[in-house]
């Protein structure tokens, strides 16, 4: 089939490997993503905190710079688990903003333009299609979360020496797992919403709502019933518990309710009621459940043609 001949001809060249075929989808999608100036700006902003963190690590190990800036090393944040936990929390918040901007049109655009049959009539399964779309989010969020996190960790290790690295080796897993759990949760949720809603703006709104509405509702439950169980329905609180657990900073009791209760039969009684966060395993279970529901939704909605009952 040559341009000048204007004839139809079969393709007789080589094919690329079947397993990597799904990677074609993120390659094209990322090209579209970076056409947006807003997204590029936010993407650049995502690297401000890693830059600040890198400077802090550098200052910790450079007496000349500290002297020049007249800063006492004790005034600086210590480079420990809480430092990296804060890093993960900040970067994952940025990751959420990126997801709200990038993910909603990924499937919804294909649904509204009826493009799914075009993808699925090729040697590409539904799972590979979703994996391809998910790779867009996972790749983008990895660039702003665990990749800079691990780079800063190794920068600190190179400056602090082998002993520090050996003592904090477990943090590599904490940084990577903490970020990846968030990335997978975000990408699955975003894709599930994208597969349900055909309009980008509505999909973005729904994604925001999924995070903020249950959080607010959980807070109301906590205040009304003097409990921390409301955190179970808040994805923010759940993921924070998981991060704290991974960094060894999880504390179940996060407060106490003190007061008196008057009983008409007995005397006035004083109570001291501890406020307990849901156990860590419950947080993991909640995240796993949300992911399972998203996978189920994607399996139902990502089809070449929907059979209407």
């Amino acid at each position: 089939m040559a341009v000048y001949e204007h004839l139809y001809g079969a393709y007789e060249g080589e094919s690329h490997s079947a397993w990597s075929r799904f990677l074609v989808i993120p390659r094209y999608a990322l090209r579209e993503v970076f056409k947006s100036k807003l997204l590029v700006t936010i993407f650049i902003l995502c690297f401000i905190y890693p830059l600040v963190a890198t400077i802090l690590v550098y200052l910790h190990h450079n007496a000349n710079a500290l002297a020049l800036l007249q800063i006492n090393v004790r005034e600086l944040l210590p480079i420990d688990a809480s430092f990296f936990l804060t890093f993960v929390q900040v970067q994952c918040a940025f990751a959420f903003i990126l997801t709200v901007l990038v993910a909603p049109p990924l499937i919804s655009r294909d649904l509204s333009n009826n493009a799914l049959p075009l993808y699925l009539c090729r040697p590409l399964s539904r799972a590979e299609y979703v994996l391809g779309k998910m790779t867009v989010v996972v790749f983008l969020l990895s660039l702003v979360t665990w990749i800079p996190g691990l780079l800063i960790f190794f920068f600190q290790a190179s400056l602090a020496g082998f002993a520090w690295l050996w003592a904090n080796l477990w943090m590599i897993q904490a940084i990577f797992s903490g970020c990846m759990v968030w990335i997978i949760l975000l990408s699955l949720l975003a894709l599930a919403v994208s597969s349900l809603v055909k309009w980008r703006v509505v999909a973005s709104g729904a994604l925001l709502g999924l995070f903020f509405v249950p959080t607010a509702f959980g807070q109301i439950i906590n205040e009304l019933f003097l409990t921390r169980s409301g955190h179970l329905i808040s994805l923010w609180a759940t993921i924070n518990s998981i991060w704290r657990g991974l960094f060894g900073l999880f504390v179940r009791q996060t407060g106490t309710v003190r007061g008196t209760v008057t009983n008409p039969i007995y005397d006035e009684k004083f109570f001291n009621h501890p406020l307990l966060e849901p156990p860590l395993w419950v947080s993991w279970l909640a995240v796993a459940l949300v992911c399972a529901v998203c996978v189920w939704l994607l399996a139902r909605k990502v089809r070449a043609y929907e059979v209407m009952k």
Partner: protein
Amino acid sequence: MTSVIELEQLSVTFGKRPILKSLNGALGGRAIGLLGPNGAGKTSLIHTLLGFHPPTSGTARIFGQDITTDAKQVRAIVGYMPESDSFIAKMSCVHFVRLMAELSGIPASHALERAHEALFFVGLGEARYRPVDSYSLGMKQLAKLAQAIVHGPKLILLDEPTNGLDPPTRSRMISLIRQIRDGGRARILLSSHLLRDVEECCDEILVLKDGQIAANCNLEEERKANRKFIELETRGGDRAAFVEAIGGLGCEYALSGERRIKLIMNETVEISDLYLLALEHRVQIRRLNFKRDSLEDIFLKAMENGNVGEGVSASVNNENAVENANGNGRMSNGSL
């Protein structure tokens, strides 16, 4: 003729509603027309072949590969042009077609080249850098055809390719399909409501009705067979002697009205022999037609007969009320 598509007790059910009912048969034409009224199961059959709907029972094979167990291999050798508007928004046509080529397994470097070639082939060469969403309906149809052929499939499934096209674009689409067919590098399965489209492009037809095969016939063979049926309109001369002489040549004949003679030519008889006989008996031959079944005849007959079943030849002629003639050229009713 090797089978392109083999259907083996293929049934598909949506919920409790059967859509395709135990389809059996082998299709081997260069271009196969898929006909049937709305809701007959044409699109469902195409979707099932592509693996969009799992068969409830039975299976089908495309070039010997099972659609259920070798779904990916099947999709690698098939190109599909969907009926409805399908494209990827905010993407230029050349990028869209290139993406489709890459998804079919063509490396990125070759995919761009193939995309350009496919777009030039369908006639969108000059508009290839425009976003597909800005295209007119006709251009979108051509873009869909380009993405269906960009990876050089062995079988191209076209679902209503001329839907909503104006006459020039329609004839362009038909000529492209015929060009692909005549190239011989790809087989075509064309689903259409428009009998004329199928007649112009296809050499085999499969008529579906209520999810069952109502007729399956080879149009080429039908056309060849129909070349033996001739209708003459005559004036003057000794008509009775002329008719008898035709019978003497070994041709079956029937008289239709006062001037018309229908006959089945004996294999040894040529048209020139008829003219010689006419000259001999001073009969003027005013009109000579090769009577052939139009696709419409075949389709209507299949619809009338209902579910005729698999592999039934629909070689029929509408005009079956023929007056019998005396002599050796007697015909039974309905044979013509």
